[in-house]
Each structure stands twice: as C-alpha cells, then as structure tokens.
C-alpha cells in the first residue's frame, strides 16, 4: 500500500481542529492497514465519546475470525457495550442502522471485511444521514478493503508505528503510535500524521509525520544482544 506524501499545506488552523474531527458525530470510515493490525480499533476507541450510553459493536463473521473479537479487560471503556456478531455484512449494516435510530446509544462501531456489494454508496449514505440526524458518531472499520465510493464524512487509513519509548523499560513497547492518514474529509484538510496515544490520560497527540514511514533496517539483533 502506498502512502501519499504528507501535506505541505498544513495550516495551524487545521492542526488545531484535528482532535475535533474525530469527535464529530458523523459517519467515518477507518481502513486498517493489515487485517491483524489493531491500530484502527485503538484509534476508534480513543475517539469514543465520554458520555454515558451503550456502545453498539457489530462485526461480521470474517472480521471476527481474522481480526478477533473486542476484549473488554483490555479496552476498559466505561460505557456498557452491546455486541452483535452476524455472518453477513448486510446484517452488520442493518444492526448499525437500527442502533443509530436509538437515543440510548452513544456510539456505533461496525466492522466489515472486504468489499461486499451491499456496502455501496447508498448504504453508506443511509448510515451517514442517520448518524447526523440523531447525533451519534458512527465508525465503520474496514479490513482488506479498497476505498471505494463512500458517503463517509471522514475517511481514515490507520497503520501501526513503532511505539513510543517505555518510561521504565527500554526493551518493552510503550504508548502506541499510529500513522494516521485522513484522505478525505469535509471538515479538514487531508494529511498524514504520526499520532501518539497516551493510554493513561486517553489523549491523542497529533504531530505531522516528518517522513513517509521509514523501513526499519535493523532486524532486532542488537536488541537481542542487549537482552543477553
């Protein structure tokens, strides 16, 4: 997967509003870089609203098989979660649409594998309109998918970056860092950022990615030597 060069026209105004793009109560697409990468899920969870209300989490069968199921002891969201696992992608869309109509739902997360024919522009438009009408943020996590035509207001592509340094243990992974690309948005200018997620405070630090993702040339041998 190739990445766009980072936007050179990042104005300070755009950068300020970055946190609020994710907090918009609209439909957003999130494309995971690889199927087994939980960065996209982490990014969505970091944006869940703090208000009380059930989070509806719908998954199709392939997503569950390939990328696992949400694990609450690790997620630790304060809101109650209701999970819908169904076999067909169209059922995921139905469940999401039903939930978006409900006032007691604080956020809706859907996971769809691949590019099913039912997930066309009309389907996304329905979700987008309903999310805006009811004021519920709706996230569609897509894996092994191509960014087809969609009515999503924000479209993100998320990949993992090597994590930040662990404060106490040099060889342990620290706070997660993600490469976040906003490639289509109504509210903000697209761009690529390296985002650090502070797990203790639940804050996201956006900083412009200085370069395209660098390939780590080391094979980890030096760390192994250090470990010995």
């Amino acid at each position, binding site marked *: 997967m190739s990445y766009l060069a980072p936007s050179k026209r990042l104005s300070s105004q755009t950068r300020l509003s970055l946190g609020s793009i994710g907090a918009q109560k609209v439909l957003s697409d999130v494309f995971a870089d690889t199927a087994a990468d939980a960065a996209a899920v982490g990014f969505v969870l970091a944006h869940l609203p703090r208000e009380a209300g059930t989070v509806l989490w719908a998954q199709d069968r392939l997503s569950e098989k390939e990328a*696992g199921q949400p694990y609450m002891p690790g997620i630790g969201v304060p809101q109650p979660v209701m999970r819908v696992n169904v076999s067909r992608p169209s059922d995921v869309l139905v469940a999401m649409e039903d939930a978006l109509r409900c006032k007691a739902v604080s956020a809706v997360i859907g996971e769809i594998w691949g590019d099913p024919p039912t997930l066309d522009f009309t389907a996304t438009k329905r979700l987008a309109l309903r999310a805006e009408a009811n004021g519920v943020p709706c996230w569609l996590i897509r894996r092994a998918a191509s960014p087809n035509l969609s009515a999503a207001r924000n479209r993100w592509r998320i990949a993992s970056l090597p994590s930040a340094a662990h404060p106490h243990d040099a060889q342990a992974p620290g706070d997660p860092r993600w490469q976040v690309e906003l490639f289509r948005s109504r509210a903000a200018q697209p761009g690529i950022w390296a985002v650090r997620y502070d797990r203790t405070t639940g804050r996201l630090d956006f900083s412009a990615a200085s370069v395209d993702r660098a390939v780590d040339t080391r094979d980890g041998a030096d760390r192994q030597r250090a470990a010995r």
Partner: protein
Amino acid sequence: MERTGNAPPDDLPVAMVAEGPHGPVIHDINRAAGLAGVQRGARVTDMKALLPDLRIEYADIVGDRRAMEQLMFWVRRWCPWSVQDGVDGLVLDTTGSDHLWGGEAKMLADMEAQFSMLGLTAQIALAPTWGAAWALARYGTVRSICPEGEIPQKLSALSVDALRLNNGTVTLLRRLGLKTIGALADVPRLSLTRRFVKAKLNENPVIRLDQAMGHTAEPVSSPDAAPSFRAHARLPEPIMDPTPFLPDLCADLCDQMEAQGYGCRRLLLTVYHTDGDTHRIEVAMSVHSRDPDHLLYLFRDKLEAINPGYGFDLITLDAAQTEQMEVVQAQLEGGTDEAVDLSRLTDRLTARFGTRAVTRPALRESHIPERAQNWVAALGDTLERTKTTAPDRPIRLLYTPEEVRVLYAVPKGPPVQFIWRRQTHKITRYAGPERIAPEWWHDKPGTRLRDYFKVEDHRGRRFWLYREGLHGDGRGGDPRWFVHGMFA
C-alpha cells in the same frame, strides 16, 4: 409426588436427593426405602451405608414446585377454590360442588382415577375442616370421608403427628404422654392454654386442635391463575400471507393487556393451515411491553419463514410470560426513557439475529484471558459489572489462539521472529513473560502453563504471544507458541 413414566418398581428402594450444605441429603423416599429405614433429611452417605442398594435420583425441586402450581389450577375441575398446602399438598374447598359428581364418595373416586391417569398417586380425604382433612389424608384410611359433627371421633385415634405441628412440639406432647389427638383433646383446655400461651402457630397444639375441630375458622384463599391473553383472526378464505392481519392482532392483544394492566415478554404467533398443519413463530423481549408498534416490529422479517402451503384460515397471537406492568411516565413532557429505548433496540436486534448474536460482555475474575470475558445474551437481565484489574491486556482477542512458528535465542526467552499466517514478523521489542498458570479447579490435569509476551514487530504491530508449557515440564513435547491477541 412423582411421575411414574420411567419410575422404578415400588419394591426397589429409591431416594430423591438434594444438595445440602455438607453434601447431598435425602429429599424424599419411596415406600420401600422408608420401610428399610431411610430417613428424609439424612445424608446420602449414611443412608448408603445403611442400605447399599439404595437408588439415588436427583430431585428437581424447582420443577416440582412449578408442577404443583399447575396442578393447583388443574384440580379446579372439581371445585372453584383450591390452594397449595405446603410442598406436597393441595386443599380443595368442595363445598356445594360434590353433588355435581354424584356424591362425595364418587367425587373422591373420580379424583383418584384422574390423578392416576396423570401418573400420580394421591392420598385423598374429605373433611369439614382443613386440619381434619390434612390429618385424615396422611394418617387416616384410604379415601376417608368425615361427615359434619364426626370430627372428634374420626381424629381421636390418630397420633399427634396429624396436627400439623413441628417435630419439637410433637416430641414434647409424646413425652407428656399425649400420644393421640383424643388424649390431647381430653386435657382440660385451661391447662393446655397455660402451657402453650406464647407458642407460635406451628408449635401451638391448642390452635391446631381448634382448627382441626372447626372451632377456629381457616378459610381457603384461592389464588387466581395469571390471565392469558390471546387475539385471533378467523378468516373466511384461506390466505397466504398473514402480514395484513398482524397490526390488528397486535393492537387487539395490547388493548386486552392494557385493560388488565399487564405486559408480556414473549409472543407466540400461530398459523393454522387448511390441511391441519400449524406453524409457530416466537419472539421475545428484554422487558415487558404492550406497545403494538414495538410488538409488530419484532415480527417484521420472521413472517417470511412461514411456508403457506395451501394457505391458512386461522391466526392466533398469544402473550406469554405476562406480568403486571405499571404505567410509568419517565419524563414530564412525555418523551421516552433511554432505558426503554435501549431495551427496544435489544429486542429488535435479538428478534432479527437471534439470542446468540446479540450479546453483552460479562467479566469474570479469572486469570485465563478467554475466561475473563464471557459473552452473555443481551436479552437477559442486566448483570453487575465486575471490575477486573488486569495489568496489560490486548484490545482484541482471537477466538481460538493461532499457532505460530517461532525462532528464539534462548528457550525461556522471547522469540526473535515468528511466522503467522505465512508472514514473518521480526520482533524488535518485547515485554514479559507474564506467567499464567492453569486453573486446576477447571482444567484437565496435564494442562500446561502459559507465558505471555507482549511483542512489537518490525512494522510496529503489537501482538500478544504465549508459549504453552516449558521445556521438560513433563506435560508433552516441546512447548508450542500461539498468537492470542492484538494491542492497539
């Protein structure tokens, strides 16, 4: 009270067993076991020592209670009032209804016949008072009938056990030399009253004696059966699609329930085909409801499952699991409550995708990761959230851990690289191991321990790997490695 469908013959000693605080205890016994000296309430191990051939069956206490409740309504075929008496008795107030069965003796014979057709044995007695009937049914002759005014004669020969007293009082009366009811009745009333002035009802022979003799009234307060609600549409011509009739049926049913202040948690739609076939569709709700629109919505995609065949001419809609439901106004301006809204969403999703698809996490205190989280049906009652304090857990968990091939530098250390789903992941950083021992009270013997590592690969993806077992732990060959979850 036992169904004789698969019951052993009467001459084999059988005991029903219930769990007690210190192991299983005898709940009930049959006649053969009673003759052999098995006692109710004794521990099973003791009674097995006494009688090695004793056959043990587990008692279904809740089922028995429920069956008894149904039986209480079933016996209203003989009279309009009936009530349960303890766990094993029924009291019928047959005043004025015996002539419908051709007299009291014929009524009792009919009762015994009907009970035996159900597979039940019944000890029946007829008496003017509750207490006398209780005594005669248990300690009197078969189908004994006690006419008005003959209570003292009929009861006098029976032992004081027949007075519905607790064991301590019965023992006390025996020690006083009062072994029969007649002997007790002959004692001057003043001295008896003085002796038992502060005793409670089931310890007080004076009150019990008065009740049995009819000096103190003991009326039968007969509970009503829960009302059943049913709406039906009888059609002049067979039709293929019940959809147009459903809104009226739902509205009719909800009107009926509203009139009596009830709501239901289960709905049963039955269509009767012209060729005699029937088809049923059932939907369930998470809270009681009587909102016609909501009930109608739950059937939305289910009607397609009906095979019309030659069409059907009768549609019925039954409400089940009904319960009294108060009208609650949640908000002053008449809006809907959020909790109600959520329960409706649960109902709709469950009706559409099934109970196993719509779930809610139930966290449990367990160190084994897959046991710490359990998905339970969202339709059930809300559970309390138990807060588990896990050190560092992934946000995704694979349903079944997937085995990986690893390269490691030292056998007990972290891997240097692993191959998962045909891709090579080079490990740059790791944290661990975190050792999780098997839960011996759940797992099979021989289950190996797990050493969990949080690792980061060369592209920054963070995984949760574990090694199952150790080299030379005597529980199988080389340890195997698995991927179990993914971190953000």
